[in-house]
């Protein structure tokens, strides 16, 4: 790549301009958000910055050439195995959720999804007539007895040793059996070519089931628990994006989960103290996402009548044709 020529290693390690680096094999990285930064392009502003590579070398380059990239993904084999000795688990505290949908927005930004595609959707739920409604954020449940991976004819969607269910969109044949099988309507299909803007934003990055992008027409996608972030020791986008600290994420083996505020609690205690439960337990899918009941809610009760079945969003251009 051209940036290797531009950026010669520099022994002077100026501490001011560099942040932590992710566990990467190669690449010049400066971590900010989910993305890492590299030097690229020819235009300069004259202002110099220094970056630290994972192997401990410091590179100096022009600030104008700095651009954000995703870290290089792990191999497909690695992505199918998962992170060893981990069992990821999520806890969503319904008592704290005010339905602001910041988690959905963070998820959409992370995965370059269109506005009508919500991998993590915030439902307004009401159990019985006499009950008060509450907000219900629903990611993929990453079930331990996943109905979706069972029916896949080509092993394009799979369960990993760390509990995460992923999709390999380079193998998916688009039969949509998994969508029919998922009882939680968690999966989405790429009905047409991915959005141009999104393709441009991503550039030429290499695909990995762990980051779920670039998406491809004719394949299925869904919430992936952001394993690429986890590998960098970070939280999934929805967890860190939640201003109400609703979502906890962690490792069941360690019996610890953490929320956006950085509060780490004992998973077993959190669940037993708050009578945690799993949605539609009777289906036997063994979800890896737990909910804490919406008891003593800290926000005004949502108005069930304002929830529409249908949202009037701008139709993609392809949809113009199907006015039959």
């Amino acid at each position: 790549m051209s940036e290797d020529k531009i950026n010669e290693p520099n022994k002077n390690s100026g501490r001011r301009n560099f942040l932590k680096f992710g566990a990467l094999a190669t690449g010049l990285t400066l971590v900010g958000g989910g993305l890492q930064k590299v030097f690229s392009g020819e235009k300069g502003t004259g202002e110099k910055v220094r970056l630290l590579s994972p192997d401990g070398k410091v590179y100096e380059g022009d600030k104008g050439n700095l651009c954000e990239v995703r870290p290089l993904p792990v191999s497909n084999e690695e992505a199918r195995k998962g992170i060893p000795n981990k069992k990821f688990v999520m806890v969503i505290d319904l008592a704290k959720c005010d339905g602001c949908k910041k988690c959905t927005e963070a998820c959409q930004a992370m995965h370059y999804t269109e506005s009508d595609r919500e991998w993590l959707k915030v439902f307004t739920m009401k159990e019985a007539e006499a009950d008060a409604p509450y907000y219900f954020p629903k990611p993929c449940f990453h079930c331990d007895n996943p109905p979706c991976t069972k029916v896949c004819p080509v092993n394009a969607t799979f369960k990993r040793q760390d509990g995460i269910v992923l999709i390999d969109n380079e193998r998916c044949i688009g039969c949509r059996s998994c969508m029919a099988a998922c009882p939680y309507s968690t999966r989405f299909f790429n009905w047409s070519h991915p959005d141009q803007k999104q393709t441009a934003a991503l550039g030429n990055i290499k695909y990995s089931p762990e980051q779920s992008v670039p998406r491809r027409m004719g394949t299925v996608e869904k919430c992936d628990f952001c394993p690429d972030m986890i590998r960098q020791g970070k939280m999934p986008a929805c967890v860190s994006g939640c201003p109400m600290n609703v979502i906890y994420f962690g490792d069941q083996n360690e019996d610890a989960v953490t929320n956006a505020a950085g509060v780490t609690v004992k998973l077993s205690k959190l669940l037993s103290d708050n009578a945690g439960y799993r949605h539609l337990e009777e289906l036997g899918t063994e979800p890896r996402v737990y909910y804490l009941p919406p008891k003593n809610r800290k926000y005004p009760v949502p108005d069930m009548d304002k929830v529409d079945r249908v949202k009037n969003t701008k139709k993609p251009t392809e949809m113009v044709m199907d006015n039959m």
Partner: protein
Amino acid sequence: MANEKFDLKKEIEMVREDCLRPTRTFSRTTQVWIACLLIVIGWGLYCYIHQLRHGLGVTAMRDYVSWGLYISTFVFFIGISHSGTLVSAILRITKQEWRRPITRSAELLTFVSLLFGGIQPIIDLGRPDRIGNLVIFGRIQSPLMWDVISICTYFAGSTVFLFLPMIPDMALCRDSLTVTDTRYKRFKKWLYKFMAIGWKGTKSQWHRLEKTMNIMTIVIIPVAVSVHTVVSYIFAMTLRPGWNSTVFGPYFVVGALYSGSAGVILGMAAFRKLYHLEKYITPKHFDLMGRIVLALTMIYAYLNLNEYWIPAYKMATAEGHLLTDLFSGSYSSAFWTCQFGTVLLPIVIMAFPKGRSIGMLSITCIIIVCGAWVKRYLIVVPTLLHPFMPIQEVPGSWSSYFPNYVEFSVTAAALAGIFLVITLFSKLFPMMAVWEVEEGIEIEHDKQLAIELKEQRIAEDAKAKLLEKANGEIKPKVLISEKI
């Protein structure tokens, strides 16, 4: 009947002439018909290419209703394909003589509807270019894989099942075709010769054919049953309300037999009229087939009762929402039309002998076939619109479904493809198994001979009795029976 002179040779000549006549002509009407079919297929292909280029987004399917008309049609066509097995194999096994003129068209219907039913899921694929992944990464645990395996097996089996009884006929065509210089005739001669695979009609060849047919007849039945069972498993192996049903296997098998045998009747009526086979396919055939369809419709009605009444009595939450929609919601008119108009009404009509007359039965069967198609749609789509999670704040196009022009065009092209293959087949090959019909005539001939002999004997006995009475001698009965 005994008075009628039964000329075996003349009868057989006539059968051959009647069966081979359609293969010798190619009328204007046929040409126009084929042209129309090709236009429909051409437009369907154009729409499919459009779909390939721009993705399945050009259809009306979206994330909630992710299976629509294509998958419904798949289930319907595979159902129609059950006809050949039922009529041909079951009637062969039970040695029903009246099967002879209708086996070929039944077997052909199986072959063609399987061919076009089998490509429906491929049309529905998001990435048909990756179909090879089914071989490279195939998982035997997936119901879709069971489908691939059993449909391929059934297709191979029904091709053999169609081809085997054609061999003697191909030899007949080969031998009766006078070679002229036209390229078309030379091609036909070559085709017949190729397909007759050296059939000479020797005793050992007949013996082998019979043996193979016997094996195939038995083997094809469990294969056919398995096919529609696993087609239902695509749905029944999920947790979705409306699909999560233990009765789905038999429900689909019977539904397939019910629509498939109605399809055979329609085929019989069409060929009878178009190719002037009135002499062979008689009102008796329609009456008997009508009885079979009547029985199957009654079993189908019984399974419908189980499928809907049991959950409707309980009205469990998710299932209850779906059933409310079917019984009194947006799908209620289609649902009740299907149940009363295409299941109960045909039972009433076919219960009367007049309802099994050619005209009435044909109309009833059209109703049944169309009803079966709509029913498949009602099995696939409403369930997808009633997931466990509520449908909230989604784009309008996601929360309802009606197939659009792309889906209708592609499906129409598949239907036209079925008609085209049947038309071309009937223009190349006899639509009745000539040798089987001949065999039937021979059996009939033998029967007539036996009847004549018996009548002669009775007459002789009566004469002898009269003589004895006249002589006043009464012989012991034992002796008379010994004489017989």
